[in-house]
């Protein structure tokens, strides 16, 4: 008769991470979209900057970060539905983010084919360029009267967005770990 051992073989720390776990498909498919939608919504409801546009375009930055961190995860046409949601809440005329986000996705696809090997600095450069062009194009499409004063007022927003990009890239890679965490029990 074999007796049961007193102590469990595996410590409590590993009790929930057995080999019979796999990533949840629901979580793997919704986290990127959910985080981009949250990025569109956050500046509208949480940051009150009424005197000048100061908040970085978080929705677009999350899209860029996901696109560069995980190429091929978002379909090329993902800019259409996500951009439409951004337009509905951001105060821009409807269609501006649909157009600009789609163009950005196509541009990233093209750049990736031309320069397949990438690194941190190159990603930052690409994302920074995309953010600068996006903010300026969004300003031109917003029906605002473009004056030197307004251009000057956009400057802090652009600088903040470009400087903060690596933080968001890191945040997205954390989200990616969360997205693919083995949580679902098999069998």
């Amino acid at each position, binding site marked *: 008769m074999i007796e049961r051992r007193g102590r469990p073989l595996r410590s409590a720390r590993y009790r929930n991470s057995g080999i019979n776990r796999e990533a949840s498909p629901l979580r793997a498919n919704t986290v990127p979209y959910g985080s981009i939608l949250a990025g569109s919504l956050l500046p509208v409801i949480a940051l009150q900057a009424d005197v000048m546009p100061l908040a970085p375009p978080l929705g677009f930055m999350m899209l860029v970060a996901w696109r560069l961190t995980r190429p091929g995860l978002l379909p090329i046409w993902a*800019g259409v539905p996500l951009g439409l949601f951004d337009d509905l809440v951001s105060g821009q005329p*409807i*269609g501006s983010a649909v157009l600009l986000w789609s163009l950005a996705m196509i541009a990233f696809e093209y750049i990736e084919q031309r320069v397949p090997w990438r690194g941190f600095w190159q990603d930052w450069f690409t994302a920074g360029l995309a953010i600068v062009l996006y903010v300026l194009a969004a300003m031109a499409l917003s029906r605002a009267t473009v*004056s030197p004063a*307004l251009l000057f007022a956009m400057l802090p927003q652009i600088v903040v967005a470009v400087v903060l990009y690596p933080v968001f890239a890191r945040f997205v890679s954390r989200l990616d770990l969360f997205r693919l965490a083995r949580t679902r029990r098999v069998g």
Partner: protein
Amino acid sequence: MAPPSSRRSGFSKKAQYSVFTGYLLAALGALLGAALLALSFWQPGSFAPLRGAASDAVTPVGEVPAAARAGSQSAWDVVTGYFYAGSQNARLREENEIARIRLAEAEAVKDENRRLKALLDLAKGDVEPVATARLVGSSATSARRFAYVGVGRADGLAPGMPVQSPRGVVGRVLEVARGSARVMLVTDSESVLPVRRAGDNTVAFAEGRGDGFLRIRLINLGLNPLEVGDVFVTSGAGGYYRPGVAVAVLSELTSDGGLARLIADPSATDFVSIEPIYEGEAVEASRVRGENELTQQELEE
């Protein structure tokens, strides 16, 4: 790191078609965006119901951070208040004395005002606000300056109604949905507000610049009579705003007017009141287009 080769289709016909479809959909999406954009330039109100539904859904969520923001501001005030209590006390006592004197003067002016108005038979009571609400959100990323409030058509709001904080003018209602509304702030680059200098009748337009300043453009050009520190109030022209509400303080002089700072900074504003349009008839009259004017023949009849 080189990207995974999921986009490289190789010889598989199926993979080639799916890559092609992806590009096609993306290009069509961009075209769709351009078409939507053209439509919203041509008919700005055409997507109002869609946007309204979205803001109806979002504004209740925004109430929570708005309340938290107001709470954290007042908590910070309490903390800093302890540090500056002594010097502030002395300063406030001095200010209080001056305020009492000014109050007495204002009483006299008010009295005179009432007499003159009675003479003109213009007695108009205090304006009852249509609704009071919190500013729950703003277009913090866009070049336009909009804010959202959690009251809408169901509370009696209509486009054009002035929005005011206890300190002064904040903006006016641009779009209403059932339970929310979009407010164009006076700092928006498309906002023009007729103002006059408090104390005399130097009339001007206050145009938003999009960076938090208002550009004061005098209507009568010539010698610039303005001085830094002048307070501008609404003049009541145009019919939207009632006259005499504080708008801005001049901070810099230019050749045709100056730059002014807002008195009612929206980011420091918690609650706003939405008032009815001051003179609806004047607003209606300004909407009559050239083609609706009476012809010469009709005038002669």
